């Protein structure tokens, strides 16, 4: 008897009890489906988190983080400006560095006529736009002239626009361009409106971008809070960062206050978290698979009892005990394999759906799929063995007489 015959036989007997077969598969479907979904979503999410921390567009962040000793030696160190324009100009001279992105953020009140809102006002330099590429929906982006002249121009987020202008009858966004709003009581003209972001995490923020010079004037503050660098190539990023940190430490006579954000550590940390999550959810899925497997065993035992006569007939027609064992084993395997495939489809579908809405790369990898298929077949073998063995040991005469 060929394996093809056995599989056909298995299908026909599973098909004869459709509802029962599907209910039995449910445990396997849920188990396999959740493993696939969790692993795929987990890996996709991990990739996104890592990319978020390692910065977009291959940038590395410089940080001003005085050590405890330094603070103890001179507490005023905390109140020093983290970065100044001088620092930026200085590290820009490092050969490996292509661009230095700098920005300063202040939370402040933004007012338009009677409406006002609390918002993040971010001062940025030209490189910021070059690297992060702010998407403009209406109006124009900030251009070189704005940065050089320190013009009082702002591009604002969709949210800020809604907060400030939503009361009036629905205005066309482009009509708002040129409107003057007050940020920290200083008049600023809206020249552009950002594209609404539909990020899984961000609900994009109520924020406005203005040139760094303007920001420094508006807030009467020369501090630059965030500096990140873009190297000529990704390989040089680490070196460029270290050189920049060393240069700043020397210049400011600090030991180690200027540092680069250690990406590897963060990536490891994220990896650890997602791994733990994966293990936890996989254990739950494992329990579901175990319960599913026991369900398969139970139904197969019922099936063997129900088909006692059939087994007797088959033996009288020349089926060997091995063939009977094989038939039931294949049936159990077919049951779990179909369950596994359905679970895989549902799990992948869920992963794709979540990834789609979260806006990250779906990661349903081949090893996971192959592993899932093999594993669900293994469950069939493991939990089908007992019933199949029972079937093969039946006495043909007793079986033929079974009512």
């Amino acid at each position, binding site marked *: 008897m060929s394996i093809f015959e056995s599989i056909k036989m298995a299908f026909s*007997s599973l098909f*004869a009890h459709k509802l029962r077969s599907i209910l039995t598969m449910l445990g396997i479907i849920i188990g396999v489906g959740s493993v696939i979904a969790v692993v795929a979503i987990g890996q996709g999410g991990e990739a996104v988190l890592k990319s978020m921390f390692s910065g977009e567009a291959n940038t590395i962040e410089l940080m001003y983080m005085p050590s405890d000793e330094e603070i103890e030696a001179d507490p005023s160190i905390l109140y020093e400006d983290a970065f100044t324009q001088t620092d930026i100009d200085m590290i820009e001279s490092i050969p490996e560095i292509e661009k230095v992105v700098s920005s300063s953020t202040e939370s402040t009140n933004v007012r338009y006529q009677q409406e006002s809102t609390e918002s993040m006002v971010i001062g940025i330099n030209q490189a910021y736009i070059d690297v992060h590429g702010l998407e403009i929906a209406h109006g124009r982006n900030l251009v070189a002239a704005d940065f050089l002249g320190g013009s009082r121009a702002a591009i604002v987020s969709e949210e800020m626009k809604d907060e400030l202008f939503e009361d009036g009858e629905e205005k066309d966004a482009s009509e708002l361009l040129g409107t003057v709003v007050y940020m920290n009581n200083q008049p600023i003209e809206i020249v552009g409106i950002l594209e609404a972001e539909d990020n899984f995490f961000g609900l994009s923020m109520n924020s406005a971008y203005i040139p760094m010079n303007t920001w420094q004037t508006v807030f009467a503050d020369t501090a630059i809070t965030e500096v990140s660098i873009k190297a000529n190539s990704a390989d040089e990023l680490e070196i460029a960062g270290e050189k920049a940190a060393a240069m700043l430490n020397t210049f400011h006579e600090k030991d180690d206050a200027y540092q680069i954000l250690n990406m590897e550590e963060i990536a490891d940390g994220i990896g650890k978290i997602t791994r733990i999550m994966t293990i936890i959810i996989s254990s739950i899925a494992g329990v579901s698979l175990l319960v599913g497997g026991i369900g398969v065993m139970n139904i197969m035992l019922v099936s063997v009892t129900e088909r006692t006569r059939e087994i*007797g007939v088959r033996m009288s*027609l*020349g089926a060997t*005990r091995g063939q009977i064992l094989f038939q039931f084993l294949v049936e159990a395997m077919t049951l779990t394999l179909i369950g596994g495939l359905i679970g895989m489809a549902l799990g992948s579908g869920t992963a794709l759906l979540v990834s789609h809405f979260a806006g990250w790369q779906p990661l349903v990898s081949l090893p996971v799929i192959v592993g899932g298929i093999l594993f669900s077949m293994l469950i069939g073998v493991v939990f089908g063995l007992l019933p199949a063995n029972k079937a093969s040991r039946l006495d043909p005469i007793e079986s033929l007489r079974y009512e």
Partner: protein
Amino acid sequence: MIELHNIVKSYLVAGEDLVVLKDIHLTIEQGEFVAIMGPSGSGKSTLMNIIGCLDKPTSGEYHLQKKLVSDYNEKELAGVRNQSIGFVFQQFQLLPRLTALQNVELPMIYAGIGKKERIERAEDALDKVGLKDRMNHLPNELSGGQKQRVAIARSIVNEPSIILADEPTGALDTKTGEQIMDMFTLLNKEGTTVILVTHEAEVASYAERTVFVRDGELTSADEVVGHEALEKLRTKHDSAEQNNERGNFVNLEDVFEETETDDGTKGEEEATH
């Protein structure tokens, strides 16, 4: 050729040996048509199952085609059941979810025959029992007689040398029973050994030879029933065949009553039951 020597079959029931077959000697040549008769519980089915290699005797020797059956292992026994023996049961024993054709295919599946040849041969076998037009029917769409014909087609499809039928007409009405018996007669004429178990003398009368199981022992039916009575039945059956119209099956008890009037001692023996 079937040769049984000193066959004993006993079951352990409640700690005691229940001897079902005491000491069976039986030789059946290739091509014979043998009926096994006897009262209920006398061990007819047990004997059939031993002959069919479904059951093993407690002791004794069984030679099938000159080979000692007890030497066969499990797999070889399955092979013998598949190749050399065709079973026909009282309750038909068709698999309910398979069509007539698929039921007839079963023995060939276990013989490892390919799909195409299987279908061809199954169709031929069904044609032989006159059911080719019903081959895609499920068993519950067939009458009792049709089911038994499918079962016969299934039993002959691997061209076995022996057909074993345990009360093949037991669940059928007289008329249908006759059709089935005609079929066995035909198969026997083609050279197949046919062994059948029956309660009914009318059915047994189709056979060339009848053996009688009583209290686990074997006697020639001729001795028990009386040669004359059996001859009488045979003639009756032959003449009926000529007229193409048969009377009711004669009950075994009636045969005994007849013999009783002939010979009082036989009647006494029967009275002990």
